[in-house]
């Protein structure tokens, strides 16, 4: 599996670290325990196309949003996401 980093070109997946599904969004601080339980622990665990966050630690150290098929490992798109962590909180 090679990930085409928009800054570094196609690189083997060993250069990247995986955060996981890009979908869960951190709830507002007062959203309550159930919302946080859902955010921290529950996953759709998609079999098929999924948007996920990867970190190019062995290269440009950018956060990337990768659209990938979890059944075939086919990669459809790779986009930079500046400040992915901050973005999670914002929305």
């Amino acid at each position, binding site marked *: 599996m090679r990930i085409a980093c928009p800054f570094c070109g196609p690189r083997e997946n060993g250069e990247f670290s995986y955060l996981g*599904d890009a979908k869960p969004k951190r709830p507002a601080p007062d959203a309550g325990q159930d919302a946080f339980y859902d955010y921290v622990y*529950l996953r759709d665990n998609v079999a098929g196309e*999924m948007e996920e966050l990867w970190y190019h630690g062995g290269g440009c150290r950018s956060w990337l949003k990768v659209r990938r098929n*979890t059944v075939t*490992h086919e990669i459809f798109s790779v986009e930079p996401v500046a400040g992915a962590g901050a973005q999670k909180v914002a929305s």
Partner: protein
Amino acid sequence: MKYSIFSLARAALSGHKNWPRTWRDPEPQKQYDVVIVGGGGHGLATAYHLAHEHGIRNVAVLEKGWIGSGNAGRNTTIIRSNYLLPGNIGFYEMSMKLWETMESDLNYNAMVSQRGVLNLYHSDAQRDAYARRGNAMRINGIDSELLDQAGVRKLAPFLNFDNARFPIQGGLLQPRGGTARHDAVVWGYAHAADKLGVDIIQNCEVTGFTRDANGKVTGVETSRGTIGAGKVGIAVAGNSSRVAAMAGLRLPIESHVLQAFVSEGIKPLIPGVITFGAGHFYVSQSDKGGLVFGGDIDGYNSYAQRGNLPVVEDVCEGGMALMPVIGRVRLLRQWGGIMDMSMDGSPIIDKTPVDGLYLNAGWCYGGFKATPGSGFVFAHLIARDELHREGARFRLDRFQRGAMIDEKGQGAQPNLH
């Protein structure tokens, strides 16, 4: 039939051409008391214990492929009970005891071989952690021995003791740990369950659940028609989220791929199971002579049953750091299996919020050794609607209650467990 030295001699005289089927190949009936989804080790063990301990014999095990075609046939066959935390330690020891009597219980040769599991330590801090683990095991009546370097040298003189970066200082040995023949475990449970009346139905994929007006599960829809059931148990690790989603459930689980490897056969070298404490590498030698080994999961969500090269490289580097003697051994095969990686690294055996639906999931990559215990505990839960003492902490709601069982202390990041 009952297997014995006499049945073997009889079959030998006729050139091994007249062995009867090991289990029947029945058509699915309309209705069962219990339907188990998933014909792996855990599902078959559950069916066996339902029939054997609880007298519930009107049971079907449904398998989408052939039995044992998932993780039961893809693991590195290690059995052990060297855990630390309450909740795990008693459960895995109960499982270990079931391994010790399995072959006579099932009347099947599962090639259970208690040749020892040795976890190596490479620093003072790691020795202290292993001493603590060993003491926890002993308090719970489990065998463990903390070895110094001389003790490890006696067992495995070929290791790279003087590695500049990770010198081997010693190891924690569980002499009763070892390996078992994974396929034979599946076949043994199938044989014994079938003999007690359990229907093992292969090539039968569950595609949905039937529910009554109150939402209670009343059966399953399958590729071979609708099958009614008083209770339904799910034991499909790797695909738990997909099957649970058919009943509207979301689980604290991600599916990840774990690779395993086997080398060409060589003369006897590795005495038991040996694990590298400075990386992630575990190895044993099969009776055919092949080195069976593995390491970390690949680290990204996958249902593909195959992994990628960076982990192959990492595992082989771990092997070379530990035992350079294997450097010229050729790799024979490599494959992948899909793990239910739970949010604390421990399994789930519990009722679900859906009436009549029971869940056995989240085994991460420790499911094989748990096979007999998992079946025993899950059967108890399904038959009596109460938790077995040894599985009482494997609750589905433990994440909500903050009662995690996190052996590695990694938190809710499944690819790190």
